[in-house]
């Protein structure tokens, strides 16, 4: 081949490449790298996979609309395998080798606190898919949370119990997540007129909770709180022919748990944020887009992924093209109206979700419906 024909070929190829770009979006220049860590494998996969789906959809959408001030964003997603040590390694890699400007994730509290040490010490902005955890997180002013603190979850459960006039409540909870929420429920119960007549615990990953459920049944409560990331207690409660209404925490809301609850997925109310079958007006666009892209119905964690990327992108846009991570962090701290909820990242709990953002869904024969109950504020 002669030199001139090679040049012509190259020129043609460049034209084709550029026109493909022109059809998609007018993004150009060096992509802005944003790091993300989720639990795509291991025990947290039920959280991490939907979060990742939401994030990738957000990335696509943002780039199709022109990126951030014309520059495309590039999401680099890593898997921490539900292990905080791995999360730490991945964070080091993303922040120092891949040189991302900010970090999104992880999915589990232990990983968040572990990584938080690094992002805080080096002043990187981080948006976590967990509610604020131990006390040390309050000092980490660059670590935002897009899921509610456990205290808020506790309040939502108690608000609903009060609204159905349940004065005696029995609780079935797991030793991990359940313990944390219980610690918040106990001091608040009295102020909602609720007496905790039975509180029974089972280990994370328990294959059977029948005996614990039987103890709760014996205390004859008006309503049941089930706080777990497993379908087992729901099934056992049904098998024991317990007819009380069940109020569950958001951790049980994913479809994989609902499908495994079998007949137990009935008369269960969950304080959450996104009911894909009947979304709030401001959530409809996201739900439709997600259904179109992935052919499945999104819920809370997908929406959290979507919101997190948008929050980070907006902050980067505000801080400017060559901003330092600290500047992006400062730009992030303010109110934001997301699909999942209304946030305020300058609040003390670095989340700022008000109780009024909660939507109370109800499982009826295995299907989600949205109850009209909202908490007035």
């Amino acid at each position, binding site marked *: 081949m002669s030199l001139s024909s090679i040049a012509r070929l190259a020129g043609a190829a460049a034209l084709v490449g550029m026109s493909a770009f022109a059809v998609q979006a007018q993004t150009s220049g060096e992509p802005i790298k944003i790091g993300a860590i989720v639990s795509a494998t291991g025990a947290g996969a039920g959280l991490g996979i939907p979060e990742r789906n939401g994030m990738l959809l957000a990335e696509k959408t943002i780039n199709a609309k022109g990126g951030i001030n014309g520059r495309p964003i590039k999401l680099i997603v890593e898997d921490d395998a539900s292990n905080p040590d791995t999360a730490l390694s991945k964070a080091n890699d993303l922040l120092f080798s891949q040189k991302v400007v900010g970090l999104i994730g992880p999915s589990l509290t232990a990983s968040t606190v572990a990584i938080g040490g690094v992002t805080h010490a080096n002043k990187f902005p981080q948006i976590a898919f967990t509610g604020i955890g131990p006390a040390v997180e309050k000092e980490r002013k660059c670590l935002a949370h897009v899921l509610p603190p456990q205290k808020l979850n506790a309040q939502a459960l108690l608000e609903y119990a009060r609204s159905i006039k349940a004065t005696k409540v029995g609780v079935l909870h797991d030793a991990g997540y359940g313990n944390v929420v219980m610690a918040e429920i106990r001091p608040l119960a009295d102020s909602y007129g609720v007496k905790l007549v039975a509180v029974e615990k089972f280990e994370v990953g328990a294959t059977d909770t029948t*005996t*614990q459920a039987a103890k709760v049944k014996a205390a004859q409560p008006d309503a049941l709180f089930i706080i777990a990331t497993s379908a087992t207690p729901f*099934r056992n409660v049904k098998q024991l022919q317990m007819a009380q209404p069940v109020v569950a925490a958001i951790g049980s809301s994913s479809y994989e748990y609902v499908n*495994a609850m079998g007949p137990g997925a009935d008369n269960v109310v969950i304080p959450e944020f996104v009911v894909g079958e009947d979304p709030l007006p401001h959530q409809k666009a996201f739900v439709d887009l997600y259904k179109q892209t992935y052919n499945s119905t999104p819920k809370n964690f997908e929406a959290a992924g979507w919101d997190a990327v948008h929050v980070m992108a907006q902050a980067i846009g505000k801080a400017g093209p060559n901003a330092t991570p600290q500047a992006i962090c400062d730009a992030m701290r303010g109110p934001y109206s997301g699909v999942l909820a209304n946030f305020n990242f300058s609040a003390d709990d670095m989340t700022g979700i008000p109780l009024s953002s909660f939507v109370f869904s109800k499982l009826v024969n295995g299907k989600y419906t949205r109850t009209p109950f909202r908490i007035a504020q």
Partner: protein
Amino acid sequence: MTLSLVLQAVFAGVTNGMVYALVGMGLAAIFKGSRVINAMQGEFSVIGAMTTVLLLTKAGWPYPAAIAGGALAGALVGAFIEVAFVRYMAKKNASEDSFLLLTIGLALTLSASILFFVGRDGHLLPPLGGEGVLIVLDAVIQFHALWLIAIGIGATLLLRAFFHRTTVGLSMMAASIDADGAATTGINVARMRTFTFVLGGVLGAAGGILVTPLIGVDYQLGLNLTLKGFAAAVLGGLTNPLGAAVGGLTLGLVESLAIIGISSSYKDVVAFSVLIVIMILMPQGILGRAGRRGG
């Protein structure tokens, strides 16, 4: 603490205990026939249950056929593992720890494969006897649980008869106790070992299929079942299927009685402490005599 609560605890304890017993029996059968501790016994249960679920829901097979398919899957995977890995390692005189590590590696691989190929959802199967329950003094037990207990007892007795009365069973025991001696009497040692794994695979799969209508199956179930099954088997003396049944029942009952007698928070602590005490006080395993082949 009412009688009703105690009875409920007994129901739950016996049901769970029988689940542990089924897994433990498979473990004991494999150990008896090959002296390999199968850390992936719980995965056989998951494979059997998942196969049945897929055949039933995706391929639309009738339930009995799907169950047979699940059991067959367990058998085939068991045979494959023996032929592909165990036989090779046995020829090279691998240590017992190496075999344990092999099965641990296989367990990790299988659990991750199920997450990858089937997904993270939990799945249920239709219970035998429908959703019906038996209520005694306010304590509830599902018909399916009663079926599970009955089938478990039947399987235990059948297994015992198999090992002590049939030629194949006796040959399997002989081959594992003394391979050379067995070979001289014309027993095909390698084939016996394959049968052992097939037997373990079928038992595991059956356990999984029986348990799924009660507790659901997902990619994480395997390890839990293996640990409990291991405890059941060791308590029973490790080579005695009847012992595994007794060990499993003991474990299940200790757990549920601890929940009502002490507190649900300390269930694991109590159950495992009792386990340790039993092992120290009964060094021959719960069934004594020829039981302590694990030492």
